[in-house]
């Protein structure tokens, strides 16, 4: 991912820089200023991206730790060199110190340590306007308590403290930072901008190095952030959970000399992945940028130049690629990553590639991963017997590698879709699975209860949900409501498959969550198959363009609209979902009726409705009649009513105004236009 | 005077007569043919196929907005009027005219309006006076009009009505209609 993000951004930065330099001298002051702003904003963005990439890397357990002997004084020097210019620029004092009781050397990852210190120091400088910033490398203060056992033994801990005389962090803010730490997924951190993210990364790195970060702050006096590391890094020492200790010291209350109320909190985060010692990345493969959802190909090729070619070939086909030049490194990569396919040259230097094939096929984690083998005629049969998915004949050349990679890419492009069936009847469930799982590219899982369905949905992403409404325990209706509350499932297409008699009210309610409803009858298997393949193979089908546009036309909430109660009277099913969602997203409270008569009933029951959107072409009582009837009721004489109509003629417009509508808007409805109109009529 | 289209109308005996006429026309006839024959509303769609097997000209039942191709004959579908304009055929389900839908008058009138002096109209055997006014219309717009010699017709009402409306340039026996059309429109 990093490459794809950074490259275009870099071009943008370079061009913005060139522009702001105004070498041709033909730009106005204003234009130069704009170009500089683009450059500045782009630089900030690049920094942010780097942070995000780092964070995802650590979180995915993909950050390598390369420990080495390291003199603490070297660390101090590095910090002094890096930040003295900053201090001078801001007119601050920058003091660095290594206490004599610090053991030397220590054994840890220099780069990572520097990264954390850079972050802590730049925060310190950012929030300090006058006074000084201190980096002190020493032993932990007596009585310092660590969350992690390894650190409890103070003999082996070194403390890197960054202290500033800045604004300090107010107690509530410190809590926020603390909460940010607690959010292992980094989402909260992102909300608090640069600091949060940087601290999150630092925390994660500290964890990887077997350490902790503690924070203390007194408002108005300054803060101290301390990184505690074991003097000797051991991979197996990495604590199993993210650990942070934050101490908040509120301003000392007057007259209380000892009034340092310390609060200590320790947080449990998610378990860290077991660190895997990875082989060296000789070919610059994608190991650092692999994210969930990527298609990962392992290329095993002893000839580095050919391996390099295969890496490039796989990338152009949209695959993430790992490269191994030996059996050993292939093994380690196969353990560390979830592979989608392997291309294997049987001639692995002195080693036999078929042995690797055999062990991949025996290992539970890689047993099902398709392995394409490049082999000579003699090995062909053996390779297939060992479970190779395909064999490409030798000699190994760029062309044969292309061929093998191409086959794998084609295979992976046939993406398998996952479908979840929720049906309590065993036989019915079996039948549906038979019906829908027939295609090679569809994987069907089936459960009998809403509870199990929720669990399954949480466990892995699905492309479609087939749901029976009648379930033991939680009903299908409630399941739907629950599922659709979760943003992740907002676009999950739902097919309700039910033998239940539905009322129109049920259908309207369902329409809000489910794309389509199928009644169980003779012809329903065919339709179920049709609808399911529609959603599986054309994901955009779940939300037709029109409705998608409506939802996309959303902006921030609006005080005029917020909290207003709106009545929609419309039988156009497409509006039930899209229009209601759009209005609700603007903080409006929407009530709904399907025809004029119901609309009047709903209105009399909800006298606090502040505006009515009235369709014209409706059953029972059309919009004209309904508007007239509403106007006859004294309390609704001045109620804004906006007519919605598919009609284009002037006469129709006049007709709805004559019936008593306040205004008029044409279908299909442009949400922006409708909102403007509503603002006009809701304005007080 | 170039020839742009040939329009043929008939009722009683018209299917047979049309067959005779089409059989004598070559596949490379340079103009399209449109045909209205009176038949039941739910008339057999096999008619076009029957006519096709006996002639070099391909006969099809017209579909709305067909673009007529030279050397092909388009038959008005049962229950529809067939109308012609330059560049396309169109159908209508308007009321029957003179108890007929398709109506020969409706077809010929549209042919007269759209093709003017490039139109050729042919009235064959039949037991109604449909087509007489239409043929007269083609003639008045400068088109060429032919009527089957009533004596050679299975029913002479239709040719007689056309003659009475003084709509005909030529009155010829059934077998001679095709050679005459070839002379007017070329080809063969």
């Amino acid at each position: 991912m990093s490459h794809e993000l950074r490259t275009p951004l870099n071009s943008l930065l370079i061009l913005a820089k060139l522009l702001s330099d105004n070498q041709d001298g033909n730009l106005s002051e204003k234009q130069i200023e704009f170009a500089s702003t683009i450059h500045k904003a782009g630089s900030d963005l690049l920094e942010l991206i780097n942070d995000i990439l780092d964070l995802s890397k650590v979180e995915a357990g993909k950050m390598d730790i390369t420990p080495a002997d390291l003199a603490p004084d070297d660390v101090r020097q590095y910090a002094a060199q890096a930040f003295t210019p900053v201090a001078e620029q801001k007119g601050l004092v920058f003091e660095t110190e290594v206490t004599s009781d610090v053991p030397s050397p220590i054994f840890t990852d220099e780069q990572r340590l520097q990264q954390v210190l850079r972050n802590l120091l730049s925060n310190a400088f950012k929030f300090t306007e006058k006074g000084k910033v201190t980096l002190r490398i020493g032993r932990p203060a007596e009585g310092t308590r660590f969350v992690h056992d390894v650190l409890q033994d103070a003999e082996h801990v070194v403390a890197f403290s960054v202290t500033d005389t800045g604004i300090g962090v107010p107690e509530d803010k410190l809590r926020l930072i603390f909460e940010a730490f607690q959010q292992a997924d980094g989402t909260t951190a992102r909300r608090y901008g640069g600091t949060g993210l940087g601290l999150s990364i630092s925390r994660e790195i500290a964890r990887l190095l077997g350490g902790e970060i503690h924070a203390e702050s007194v408002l108005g006096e300054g803060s101290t952030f301390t990184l505690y590391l074991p003097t000797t890094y051991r991979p197996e020492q990495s604590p199993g959970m993210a650990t942070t200790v934050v101490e908040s010291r509120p301003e000392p209350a007057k007259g209380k000399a000892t009034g340092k109320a310390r609060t200590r909190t320790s947080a449990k985060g998610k378990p860290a992945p077991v660190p895997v010692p990875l082989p060296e990345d000789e070919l610059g493969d994608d190991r650092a940028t692999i994210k969930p959802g990527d298609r990962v190909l392992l290329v095993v090729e002893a000839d580095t130049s050919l391996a390099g070619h295969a890496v490039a070939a796989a990338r152009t086909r949209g695959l993430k690629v790992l490269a191994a030049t030996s059996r050993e490194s292939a093994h380690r990569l196969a353990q560390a990553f979830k592979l989608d396919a392997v291309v294997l040259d049987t001639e692995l230097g002195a080693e036999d590639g078929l042995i690797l094939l055999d062990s991949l096929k025996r290992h539970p984690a890689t047993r099902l991963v398709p392995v394409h083998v490049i082999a000579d005629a003699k090995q062909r049969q053996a390779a297939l017997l060992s479970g190779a998915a395909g064999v490409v004949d030798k000699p190994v050349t760029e062309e044969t590698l292309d061929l093998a990679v191409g086959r794998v890419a084609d295979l992976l492009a046939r993406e398998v879709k996952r479908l979840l069936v929720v049906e309590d009847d065993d036989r019915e469930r079996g039948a549906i699975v038979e019906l829908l799982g027939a295609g090679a590219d569809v994987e069907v899982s089936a459960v009998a209860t809403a509870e199990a369905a929720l669990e399954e949905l949480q466990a892995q992403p699905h492309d479609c949900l087939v749901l029976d409404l009648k379930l033991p325990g939680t009903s299908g209706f409630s399941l739907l409501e629950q599922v659709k509350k979760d943003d992740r499932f907002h676009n999950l297409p739902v097919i309700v498959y039910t033998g239940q008699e539905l009322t129109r009210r049920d259908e309207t309610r369902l329409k809000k969550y489910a794309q389509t409803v199928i009644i169980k009858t003779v012809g329903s298997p065919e339709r179920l198959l049709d609808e399911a393949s529609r959603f599986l193979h054309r994901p955009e089908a779940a939300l037709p363009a029109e409705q998608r546009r409506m939802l996309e036309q959303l902006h921030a909430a609006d005080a005029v609209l917020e909290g207003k109660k709106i009545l929609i009277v419309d039988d156009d099913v497409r509006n039930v979902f899209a229009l209601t969602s759009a209005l609700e997203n603007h903080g409006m409270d929407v009530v709904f009726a399907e025809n004029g008569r119901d609309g009047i009933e709903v209105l009399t029951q909800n006298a606090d409705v502040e505006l009515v959107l009235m369709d014209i072409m409706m059953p029972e009582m059309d919009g004209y009649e309904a508007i007239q009837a509403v106007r006859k009721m004294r309390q609704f004489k001045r109620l804004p009513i906006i007519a919605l109509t598919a009609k284009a003629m002037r006469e129709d417009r006049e007709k709805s105004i004559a019936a008593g509508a306040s205004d008029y808007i044409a279908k299909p409805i442009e949400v922006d236009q409708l909102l403007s109109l509503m603002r006009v009529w809701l304005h007080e | 005077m170039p020839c742009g289209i040939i329009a043929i109308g008939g009722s009683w005996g018209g299917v047979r007569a049309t067959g005779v006429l089409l059989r004598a026309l070559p596949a490379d006839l340079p103009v399209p043919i449109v045909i209205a024959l009176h038949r039941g509303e739910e008339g057999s769609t096999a008619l076009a196929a029957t006519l096709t097997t006996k002639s070099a000209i391909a006969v099809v039942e017209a579909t709305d907005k067909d673009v007529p191709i030279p050397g092909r004959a388009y038959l008005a579908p049962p229950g529809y009027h067939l109308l012609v304009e330059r560049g396309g055929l169109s159908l209508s389900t308007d009321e029957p005219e003179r108890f007929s839908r398709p109506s020969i008058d409706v077809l010929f009138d549209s042919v007269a309006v759209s093709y003017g002096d490039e139109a050729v109209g042919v009235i064959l055997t039949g037991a109604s006076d449909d087509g007489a006014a239409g043929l007269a219309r083609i003639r008045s717009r400068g088109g060429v009009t032919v009527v089957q010699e009533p004596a050679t017709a299975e029913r002479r009402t239709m040719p007689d009505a056309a003659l009475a409306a003084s709509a005909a340039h030529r009155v010829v026996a059934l077998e001679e209609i095709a050679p005459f059309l070839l002379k007017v429109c070329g080809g063969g």
Partner: protein
Amino acid sequence: MPDPREPQRRRDLEAVEIDLLAEGIYEAYGFDFRRYSRPSFRRRVWRRVEFEGLTSISGLLERVLHDPAAMKRLLADLSVNVSAMFRDPGFFRVFRAKVIPQLRTYPFLRVWNAGCATGEETLSVAILLKEAGLYDRTRIYATDMDDATLDQARTLAYPIAKMREYTENYIRAGGTRSFSEYYVADGDRVVFHPSLAQNVVFAQHNLVTDRSFNEFHVIMCRNVMIYFDRDLQEHVHKLLYESLTPFGVLGLGSRETLELSGHREGYEQLDETARLYRKVV
């Protein structure tokens, strides 16, 4: 000496008059006949010219511009596409066999009879759905551009003289009851049972100018678009396509085709002969 180009010039003049008429009606009343298929439009206009006792299309233009009542009469002429109940019985047989089973899988059905004119088709569909046991969960939207025509459709009354043909059609369409159950004779007309219209919404809607107003499982638009030119047909096809639910069914007249339409790819034909198309994309 007569001008040899006279006929040619006369034809052009008439074309000019028709253009002006369509343009004038559009400007004054908003009804858009400019892309109606010329030959039929011309015939209908001439018929109105004659009924009004006029001699030219220009004369008709003058009258409809100044006399809204005359416009209403012309509109009725232009709106009515003469239909019959169960027209093309074969179409309804296929509908019964191939569409009804699919319709049973929906909890509620919306059917749009676009260009319903005097309602023969609407009632045919209502009867068919009733016999399939689906009518109670169906709503049929029967729309036409002309209010007067709709008013007539709402009466559910037809000339008694038509009943023989309709009964024959009904039987051939595979009707399962006795056709006479559905109507009572009243003088020279018959009136169909009001329960057939119970779930029918008769509403004014102009296919040429108005937009999609709901999503339907079935759209019947038979022998309506034959009165439109190719461009307008394409426009209406788009409207119908947008108004069909995925896998919804479109019914066309027996000599209408989707083959030339840009929407052909969006449908599969359900039967070799009957013009029933299922939206697939």
